[in-house]
Each structure stands twice: as C-alpha cells, then as structure tokens.
C-alpha cells in the first residue's frame, strides 16, 4: 500500500496548480500552498478530495490551520494511527 506521502503527492499532482512548477517536478513538503500560489477554489476542492481519499472528515477549521503538505501528512498519520 502507498504511504500517506505518496497518496498526497498524487492528489496534489492531479489537482493543484503550483505556479512555475515543471510537470513531474516533486513539490517540497514544507512549501506553504498559499505561498505556492494555489487558488482558494483549488484549496477548497483539495480539502474535499483529501477527505475522500483518506476516508476522513477533516473539519474546515482544522484544514485551514494546516499550511503545508507536510503538516497535512502529519495530521493524516496521527489521525490514522
């Protein structure tokens, strides 16, 4: 089974436009998605897609506190574990 990081990277690659990133270039996990130029529409859809992928209900106020993919991975792993 893929790790949380691999599954999250796949979701990001398919659903978020990171400004200036060449296709196939991996994102850095400590990059704030807001600073990477991700729009709020993409972020909100991404929130929903993460909930579906990991079969978890992440409240909006919790998701809003998670600034980077690294924070999100830590949250998902803590919740699963």
């Amino acid at each position, binding site marked *: 089974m893929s790790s949380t990081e691999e599954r999250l990277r796949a979701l990001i690659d398919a659903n978020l436009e990171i*400004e*200036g990133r060449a296709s196939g270039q991996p994102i850095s996990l400590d990059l704030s998605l807001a600073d*990477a130029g991700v729009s709020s529409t993409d972020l909100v859809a991404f929130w929903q897609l993460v909930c579906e992928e990991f079969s978890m209900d992440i409240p909006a106020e919790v998701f809003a506190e998670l600034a980077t993919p690294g924070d999100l991975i830590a949250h998902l792993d803590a919740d699963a574990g």
Partner: protein
Amino acid sequence: MNVACPPAVQSGGWWQPFAAFDGVAVLHVDLAPDALNEQRAWAWLDPAERQRADQFRHGGAKRQYVLCRSALRSLLCDALSCRNEQLAFRASKHGKPSAFVGGSKSAFGFNVSHGGRHGLIALAPDGTVGVDVEERSAPRNLDVLVDTVLSPGERAEVMAAAGDEKLRLFLNLWTMKEALSKARGVGMSMDVSGFEIPHGMLRGTRGGVFCFPDVPDLTWALHNVGTDDFAAAVACTTQAVCDAS
C-alpha cells in the same frame, strides 16, 4: 450601484475607484505584469512585506501581493493621514490583516482580494468589511466545489443551470460566501455550506442583507460587484434588518 467614491479615495498608478455604497469605497487594482509599476510598488513595502513577497516562489502570486499591498498602503496613508513608515499591519489568528499607525491599532476597516489580473480593495472607515474577486474561468474541480461549498438549495439552483450559466452562478455564490467569511475574519476555517446567500441575490439582485445563523445579532450588507471579466462581492457591517431568505 453608485460608482462615485469618497473624495479621499484617489487613483494611483495601478488602482482606481471602482464602486461605492453604504460608506464603503471599493478600488480596482490592475494586476497585469508591468515592470515599472512593480518597481514603484516594491518601494512602498516594509522589510517584513518584502520578505513575505520573496517567499512566493513564482511571479504571479508575488506580483499580486506587491501591487495590492502597496496600493493598500497608499490608500490607508491618505485615509489615516499618516506616513508610510508609520503604517504597519498585523494579522489575526486566521490571517485577516489590521492596520496599526505608530503602534496603535486603527479601527479603519479594509480588506483585499486578488485573482488573476484583478485585485479589489474595500475600505470601510466605520465598519468591518470583506471582499473577494475571482476571474470568470472554470475552476478545475467545479463539481467537487459545488458539493462542498453550497447549501442543498443553492446546489440545486446551480445544477439546474445550463452551460455557462452554471459557472456564472457558482462564481457569484462563491465570491459572496468568501466575502462574508473574510468580513468575519474566519477565512477558510469556516464551512460555508452551512449558510445561504439571500435568495434574491441568487436570482440576480445585486444587494441584500445577511446574518450568519450563529451570530443573528450582527447584520451584513452584501453586494455583488461582479463584471463580465470577474465575479466579485463585498460584505460590510450594517444597521439594516436581515432579509428573510
């Protein structure tokens, strides 16, 4: 909509008066690439703002931030009769900035939004305000967004719309909900599917009065200020009575 602005609100190199109502002035900021304007804008920023600008990895988001923040600085210096060096910003828990002059918090309400080539700045000298702008292009996961941010009734209206009307209606609702949550200062931390935009505004009325279900005593005037190029909305505190939706 009344498009006259209070006299204190001046045009600048890359911003100009856009709308005014209920004691709120709204300015449009031109975010098209322009090396000279970007250079002039950079000079207005303080060291912390320059550091933040440099954190944006790539051009578009950095340009939006620099052009909007410098325009905001110029407008607030005029409105608060202060020098640029006296003006600072601090963000609330969820990121909403407030202005400080000489270290004291100002009660002057303002809010900023940027999307693509369009920025909007709303100024509310006596109130609390939120603004949101989105270019009229289709977000990547429109159906996911419709399911996530709209109430069941709003979702039904949007899904019943045909062709381009579906996107137009969705973006109108999205910017109105974002303007309200930004006015409240909660940003993305609020699940906006839990409240409904006044029904008349869903059908095309440009203004309405709104109350959040959990804060019924505080009323907000909501304005759809969108154009053919962008969807946009402004929400500001009002004494008016809440519309029955």
